[in-house]
């Protein structure tokens, strides 16, 4: 379905001072996504977790073709969509099949578009020509599918609640029956009461429409509920991937362990977490030092000399660490 190989994105860090001026430096690069591989099977739901600034947003913007990659291939339905320039992708046949649900429902709805305009826009732009009546009918269908009362279709975003806005965003994303949906923290801006509704809605939609999900979140509790497989990302690289249960019950990478142990739970005791210090800079990182080095409790000289690569632990679990933990 989706196969990403060696995907890389560097952002130049604009130096205000050119090199020839006092205090000037050579242009540096922020390694947002650094040679990353991943695959998603049809109908599979994959979770991507990591801290803010680890490159999650950049990765999904590369995959959804909003950003031009520095290097690498993005195979979607057998077509390398990474080769299609961002500007031309909006006319490509794959566009309709690869859609996205955005993080902040307020920010992702055009304030001057009604819910109807927003939901039908992909159909009008990418679908076959349809008259107003058919559009209306389709919009009503979609609204019902996402649990939005159809009478709210004529409202503007500021007249809708957070949960309703989230539903509009989801309806827009599924309007063209995509085969793959990228969900960018779809519930992080919502209250828990609404979050639960939206999570149920997303689970139902996946079952009904057999869509693949790439679910991005920093909330592991949420990812656990919705995903079959988990990718853990740290500073532009994947550090561990595996089935959800394996990752939660037997995390191998020290960073994953830290993440799992930091999940708040009802009436747990305040826990000591193994990570200290500040993350390394993502700007021009040394390729020979493990990116977690300095924060990792296991780090030693070896981690400073060679950065670990993603290695299989078993058929479906991979980890990038010189000293992975073994299940007791």
């Amino acid at each position, binding site marked *: 379905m989706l196969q990403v190989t060696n995907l890389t994105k560097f952002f130049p*860090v604009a*130096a*205000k001072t050119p090199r020839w*001026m*006092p205090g000037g430096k050579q242009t540096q690069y922020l390694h947002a996504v650094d040679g990353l591989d991943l695959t998603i099977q049809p109908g599979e739901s994959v979770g991507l977790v990591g801290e803010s600034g680890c490159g999650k947003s950049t990765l999904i913007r590369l995959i959804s073709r909003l950003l031009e990659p520095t290097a690498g291939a993005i195979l979607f339905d057998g077509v390398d969509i990474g080769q299609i320039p961002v500007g031309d992708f909006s006319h490509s046949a794959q566009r309709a099949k690869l859609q996205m649900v955005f993080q902040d429902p307020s920010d992702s709805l055009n304030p001057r578009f009604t819910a109807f305009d927003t939901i039908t826009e992909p159909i009008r732009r990418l679908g076959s020509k349809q008259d107003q009546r058919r559009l209306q009918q389709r919009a009503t269908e979609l609204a019902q599918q996402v649990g939005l009362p159809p009478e709210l279709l004529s409202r503007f975003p500021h007249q809708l609640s957070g949960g309703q806005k989230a539903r509009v965003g989801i309806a827009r994303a599924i309007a063209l029956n995509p085969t793959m949906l990228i969900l960018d923290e779809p519930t992080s801006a919502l209250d828990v009461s609404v979050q639960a509704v939206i999570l149920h809605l997303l689970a139902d939609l996946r079952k009904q429409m057999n869509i693949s999900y790439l679910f991005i979140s920093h909330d592991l509790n949420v990812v656990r509920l919705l995903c079959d497989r988990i990718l853990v990302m740290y500073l532009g690289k994947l550090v561990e991937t595996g089935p959800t249960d394996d990752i939660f019950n037997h995390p191998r990478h020290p960073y994953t362990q830290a993440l799992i142990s930091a999940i708040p739970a009802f009436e747990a005791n305040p826990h000591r977490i193994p990570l200290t210090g500040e993350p390394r800079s993502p700007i021009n990182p040394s390729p020979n030092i493990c990116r977690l080095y300095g924060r990792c409790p296991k780090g030693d000289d070896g981690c400073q000399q060679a950065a670990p690569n993603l290695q299989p632990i078993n058929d479906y679990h991979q980890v990038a660490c010189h000293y992975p933990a073994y299940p007791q």
Partner: protein
Amino acid sequence: MSRPSTLSVVIRRIIAAIPSILGVIIVTFILTRALPGDPAAYFAGPAATQEAIDQIRETLGLNRSLPEQFIIYVGELLRGDLGNSLTTGQTVLSDLLTRLPASLELTLAGLLFSLTLALPLGILAATRPGSWLDHGVRVLATAGVSLPTFFTGLLLIYVFYFRLGIAPAPLGRLAILYSSPDQITGLFLVDSLLAGDFETFQAAFGQLILPAVTLGLFALAPLTRVTRASMLSVLSSDFIRTARASGLAPSMILFGYAFRNALLPVVTTLGVVFSFLLGANVLVEKVFAWPGIGSYAVSALIASDYAAVQGFVLTMALLYVVLNLLIDLLYTVIDPRAGVES
């Protein structure tokens, strides 16, 4: 977390001003060459003979290609040659230089007047939003920016000179009885004080007050508005809440925390304000017969004294570039983030 040194920031700003200067020179060059008809005829003035026009064409290099003309133009600029004024018979440069201090004195006095009024008014209004004081300040500021300076000037003359008789005749920097102080800075107020001549100081001050107020009223509005707006937004910001929660004294919060942060937009606005002031300067100088470069330009315009007008536009633009540079540097001093690469 390395911070660039102040020196490198200063040098960077100065270098960044070079394109502006170049742009200004190019635009003034285009303006001279864009004259409809024969530029040489314009420069020679309405009464010129054909020989005179031909001679001007030769000196301006109008028979050569545009790039060549531009190089000649830049070369002349570098030598300080702005041409000769038809009306005064002097070089434009010397005309401008003798008159510049008068304009500067007026502009600075106007700025000083509006700053001393605008900052307290803006702060007062911001600390009492919605009060009658706030509304009063708002109306005053809006009225100030709505007043055509030439009209305000005339109004003030009518009231304070003609009606009340407490202002001197609006005829320049000093009444005829006084002789101007020895030139040191060129600013009469400063020079007369340096010379210890209080009588002249008083006279010069009397002459200056109406035009300066006229000018200042115009700049009052943008400064008050921006002070109020930025004070308001800073006062409602999170870090002020932190300061209040920490129990800092109100004066510390208002001046140490809020005002310094609010000053950043005010400093930025100074650029616009100078643009206003330098423009309004021309009108005010005409109304008060102020012997600055503005009134010089107006009479040159009327006499079609083209070289003088060009010289004036260029001088004002360069002056403005320098002022903006100073504002930029001031900003860097206040805001530690200003010199940082994003």
